[in-house]
């Protein structure tokens, strides 16, 4: 019965409102109460109505906030003055329009009296233009070296030509779109030469570092990436090539690639998923079993966007390890620049502990610069233990402060190497609490493995005197990832 009532019955909101207002006769009230007792939707509606009446009553009774009427009056009267001036100017509009029409007529008459230009011989058809390479996203510092040796910062508006080299600094990455053929991601500390960009063949040369390619089904076209004396030829695939001096490493996520040596002899035939190195051969496979690539997913490069799309940029944020944009994972170590079409952009901020904060950002035709304040960081309690109004930290400026302290932090790490077995690289999190004036109130270190006490004490000393932009409020607590490695 109750189920039937839930499915078929529409609560009578007006009757419930009268009941609440005490405006029903005693008989009507009793009848409605009996109905409500066995009608679940009605009980829910009544509960919602009561909650609304309570909240709305408070909202109606809330005092109007005190505001600066003098400022508003000045603005309103200023608007009135400019409106009056505009209306006065509009009175002259018909005369101005007539004058403009007259001037246009005279110009047209003069133009018609000019002699016909002498016909020029037709130019010879030009050689086919190379495929356009579009820079779709940039993180950190990336340079473009032209064939004549000139070197300039790579920008979203750069149009690399055949013979150019894309040079990404450590921590940087460049996302390229080669016509409709391929998307290429040049990862930090890498150089990729664009050897040939023709309709029937794309040839790239990896001078150093790593490049990921996502290649569309090719048909008769050729797509080759050469590195360390090997050529990796592709038939519609998604693969990564790393160059280690005289050796290369290939990981194929989708599709099929051949690896050829300098003489053009095939040395490996790789079908995804597979990993292969020129020194060891197939990686991660037992003889006779299908080869498997590493579980780590390949990172794809950004899809091409129209040159007229809006510019979107994010400053380097120490609290974010990587950005996820429409399924692409981008490095967060440097400033990110890219073009995005107007609409809603889904952005994920991956924190050092792996959590992802998701944001939806409306992009209009003018573009958007990411405001770090959109990512609220944990608030700090004020001294008396009650939560005060939180401060807001300019994360880009905070990042610059921490970068400034990087040399002394690196010295702490190198000093601890002398006394402990720390080797390779160490990643840790620095948790800083700063007061309203931007001074350090406390600092804590966290790492996946135990840290030598000397390193902890040294890092604390090195950060004790840092001065951050004043966040105001009751101060703020934030985390900055630190990474140390042997020089």
């Amino acid at each position, binding site marked *: 019965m109750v189920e039937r009532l839930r499915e078929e019955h529409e609560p009578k909101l007006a009757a419930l409102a009268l009941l609440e207002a005490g405006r029903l006769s005693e008989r009507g009230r009793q009848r409605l109460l009996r109905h409500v007792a066995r009608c679940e939707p009605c009980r829910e509606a009544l509960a919602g109505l009561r909650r609304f009446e*309570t*909240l709305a009553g408070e909202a109606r009774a*809330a005092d109007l906030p005190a505001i600066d009427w003098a400022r508003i*009056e000045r603005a309103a*009267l200023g608007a009135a003055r400019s409106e009056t001036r505009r209306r006065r100017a509009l009175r002259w509009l018909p005369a101005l329009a007539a004058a403009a029409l007259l001037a246009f007529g005279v110009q047209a008459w003069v133009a018609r009296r000019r002699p016909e230009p002498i016909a020029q011989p037709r130019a010879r058809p030009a050689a086919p233009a190379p495929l356009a390479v579009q820079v779709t996203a940039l993180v950190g510092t990336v340079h473009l070296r032209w064939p004549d040796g000139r070197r300039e910062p790579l920008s979203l508006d750069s149009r690399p030509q055949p013979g150019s080299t894309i040079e990404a600094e450590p921590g940087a990455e460049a996302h390229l779109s080669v016509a409709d053929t391929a998307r290429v991601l040049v990862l930090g500390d890498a150089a990729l030469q664009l050897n040939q960009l023709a309709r029937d063949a794309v040839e790239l040369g990896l001078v150093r570092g790593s490049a990921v390619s996502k290649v569309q089904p090719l048909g008769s076209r050729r797509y080759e990436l050469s590195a360390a004396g090997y050529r990796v030829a592709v038939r519609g695939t998604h693969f990564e090539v790393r160059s280690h001096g005289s050796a290369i490493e290939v990981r194929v996520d989708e599709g099929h690639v051949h690896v050829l040596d300098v003489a053009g002899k095939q040395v490996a035939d790789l079908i995804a998923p597979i990993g292969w190195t020129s020194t060891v051969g197939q990686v991660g496979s037992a003889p006779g079993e299908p080869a498997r690539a590493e579980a780590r997913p390949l990172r794809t490069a950004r899809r091409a966007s129209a040159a007229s799309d809006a510019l979107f940029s994010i400053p380097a944020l120490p609290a974010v390890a990587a950005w996820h944009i429409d399924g692409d994972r981008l490095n967060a170590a440097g400033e990110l620049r890219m073009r995005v079409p107007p609409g809603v952009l889904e952005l994920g901020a991956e924190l050092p502990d792996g959590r992802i*904060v998701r944001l939806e950002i409306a992009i209009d035709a003018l573009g958007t610069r990411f405001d770090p304040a959109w*990512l609220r960081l944990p608030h700090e309690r004020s001294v008396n233990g*009650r939560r005060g*109004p939180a401060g807001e930290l300019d994360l880009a400026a905070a990042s610059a402060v921490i970068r400034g302290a990087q040399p002394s932090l690196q010295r702490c790490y190198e000093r601890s190497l002398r006394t402990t077995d720390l080797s390779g690289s160490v990643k840790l999190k620095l948790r800083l609490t700063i007061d309203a004036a931007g001074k350090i109130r406390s600092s804590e270190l966290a790492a996946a493995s135990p840290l030598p006490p000397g390193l902890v004490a040294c890092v604390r000393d090195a950060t004790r005197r840092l001065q951050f932009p004043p966040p105001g409020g009751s101060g703020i607590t934030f985390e900055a990832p630190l990474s140390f490695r042997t020089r």
Partner: protein
Amino acid sequence: MADLDPLIAAAQRGEPRALRGLFERYRNDVLRIAFRVIGPSPDLEDVAQEAFVQIIRSLPSYRGNAKFSTWLFRVVTNVARMHVRRERSRPRLAGAPEGLLEARPDPGQQPDEEAARNARLRALYRHLDALSEKKRTVLVLHDLAGVAAAEVAQIVEAPVLTVRTRLFYARKELYAALASDPELTDLLAWLQAQDGEERGKGGTGTTGAAGGGGG
């Protein structure tokens, strides 16, 4: 065209003294409507200013076909609606892990009355923001600002019947959302406890059949 109030007619001609008089006469109405539509927001002052600038610019288009206050409310409502629309398109945190959201009242501490009332007000506007713009506008003007349905119809430029229909569906959606919000259970429990104490002291009764606010 009806005869215009001399103050409004003078303001339409751009006379500064009349504009000041108009500002003095209607500023609280403008603020009240803007406050009811956008809710507790640090942008209220900006919205009120934008509304006045818009009123001054549109003043020559007022022909006296409707009450001046109705025309004024229409302008203010439109400015406030534009603000709400812009706020909706701003980035919001979705699925943020604990600690990254705005400060919340500490459950371990007794919130004072002001903080609790603000929290309830924010909760109400959070649910209002989930309604469509048309339903939200009608409900806020009618149920919170106390504007009659016929005047709401003139403000939103829709037939009265349409206003009543929007109001019905807005209330239905809102009541369902409020009834099933567990956060409100805590917020209102505190209020009911306060009421209980008051009643215990003063001995006043309340109307209503079923007890408790939790759905």
